[in-house]
């Protein structure tokens, strides 16, 4: 039943004090997917996740987790989902083990299975060696993994994670994505939000979110193909001069300097020749010039502008 829809929102909206956070948003997440909501701060990611978790009611529209409505049966939803907010409620004065036991009791995990489940989750999170350490003495990455382990104590089939990699260093981030892959393997469906566009590449499907709406919902690879976006990379010692020479030209939508490289987003790939001759006339000799795969950030910007 790969196509079974586990999470569904139908035209949900929500505003706070007159400011619209989410507008007319629809989403369908199938069983076994790792769905990413990707967008900047203030795009509406947290509001969407909170509505789907049954914590926040939408101003209009309706959402479901499995067969349950977030409006009518939020309590049933809490039984089948694991929800990790941006600041997960760890008890700083309790040890790793005590935090786990607390959540086991909160979710009514039967006494017989509790010990075994706690042990296996600590193992999963790589925290077995730190059982007695107080939560407040953990690094950011370890806290995040403990939070994840606590969310999994009742074996949820659906996991909603709000910016789990925000403020976490690159190694801990890579580690967290590995743990999510382990969960996918076990058939858990995951909805994750992130402000980092490059992380979209790790998801099976992505909604690019901007100002309360999805700009596009697609598999990351297909996203780049759908949007025909020729990005010309010019490698040159003095990238800024390249921008001065050609950045203002008609048909050049974006000119971004990255150290010794310039990325030019062209209206059409034929403009390459025009760029080349213009640089040549200005006496600029690039070390290399080639078309590169557009990044998801390029895709996002081109959609946000249009």
């Amino acid at each position, binding site marked *: 039943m790969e196509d079974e829809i586990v999470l569904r929102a139908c035209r949900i909206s929500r505003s706070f004090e007159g400011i619209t956070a989410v507008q007319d948003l629809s989403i369908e997440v199938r069983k076994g997917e790792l769905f990413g909501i990707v967008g900047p701060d203030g795009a509406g990611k947290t509001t969407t996740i909170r509505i789907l978790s049954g914590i926040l009611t939408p101003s209009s529209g309706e959402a479901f987790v499995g067969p349950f409505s977030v409006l009518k049966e939020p309590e049933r939803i809490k039984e089948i989902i694991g929800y990790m907010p941006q600041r997960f409620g760890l008890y700083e004065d309790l040890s790793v083990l005590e935090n786990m036991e607390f959540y086991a009791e909160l979710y009514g995990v039967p006494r017989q299975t509790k010990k075994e489940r706690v042990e296996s989750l600590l193992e999963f999170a790589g925290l077995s060696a730190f059982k007695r350490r107080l939560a407040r003495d953990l690094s950011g*990455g370890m806290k995040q993994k403990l939070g994840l382990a606590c969310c999994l104590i009742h074996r949820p089939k659906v996991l909603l994670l709000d910016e789990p990699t925000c403020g976490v260093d690159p190694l801990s981030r890579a580690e967290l994505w590995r743990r*999510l892959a382990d969960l996918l393997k076990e058939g858990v469906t995951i909805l994750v939000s992130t402000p980092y566009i490059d992380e979209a*590449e790790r998801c099976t499907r992505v909604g690019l979110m901007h100002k309360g709406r999805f700009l596009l919902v697609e598999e990351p690879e297909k996203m780049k193909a759908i949007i025909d976006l020729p990005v010309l990379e010019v490698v040159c010692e003095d990238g*800024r001069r390249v921008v001065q020479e050609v950045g203002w030209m008609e048909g050049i939508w974006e000119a971004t300097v990255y150290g010794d490289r310039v990325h030019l987003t062209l209206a059409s790939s034929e403009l390459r020749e025009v760029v080349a001759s213009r640089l040549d006339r200005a006496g600029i000799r690039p070390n290399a010039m080639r078309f590169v795969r557009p990044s998801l950030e390029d895709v996002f910007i081109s959609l946000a502008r249009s």
Partner: protein
Amino acid sequence: MREQETVVEVRGLTKVFGDFVAVSRVDLTIRRGEIFGFLGPNGAGKSTTIKMLCGILPPSSGEGMVAGCDLLKERVEIKRQIGYMSQRFSLYEELSVEENIDFFMGVYNVPRARKRERKEWVLEMAGLKERRKAVTKMLPQGHRQRLALGCAIVHEPSVVFLDEPTSGVDPVMRRRFWGIINELSNEGKTIIVTTHYLDEAEYCNRLALMHEGKIAALGTPSELKHGHKEEVLEIELDRIFEGLSVLASRALAASLFGRTLHVPVKRGTPTSEIIELLRGYGVEVRRVESIPPSLEDVFVSLIEKRR
């Protein structure tokens, strides 16, 4: 690089807290006009290094100069020569745009004769000329961010420190911000960035990766990627999770990327080896392609190797 003048020069820079060596014998030269990035996991020594370069922390040993000031003897003077902007914009939200600028000009002792000109410069750069009376918290994020930058450099420092300046910012605004940073560097300001995020690191001319108090790698983003001894294979296969387990059992650090696996391998490893390995376990490979490693791939693999 046209500018060869050295702005930051440190030798043997070390900071010890008790028996913990936070920064160990760091040598570093940063030229005028460079955009220089520090990357690394938490606890790697990035922020301790920055604090020493800003004159906030005295080094335990080593020596150096920042913006013409001696790191050991002229720490107070250094603070006047630098600007600092943190990821949490340090603006007073309840004050107006103009009041914020006035406040920071007071803090940094901008000479009376320069005040009017500097204020107009900040307003122009932040795109707020028409909104100088607006309460800061009412401004869109992108404008607040540029105002914060303007306030941090209102005293025309020659070195500007940025701490994760665009993390979580709208991509359109982020590019505009980095456009301004590039203009500043073009005018000869030296920019030093600390970040966890490769999308910010890509904007730097040179990067230092810190690990356990030392510089583990140093170079331009392209040098770091091309000089990397590994390449990344993007593999599309049926039964993706079986594939993941097989590769993990061979100590290959495969990661799931959507419907593909990314597998770092030694440069030049024949792809047939991987295909045969997987086929041996009944996993069919549909496509293998070598893709350029991202900065994140480079850093994760460099650091995991050292552990």
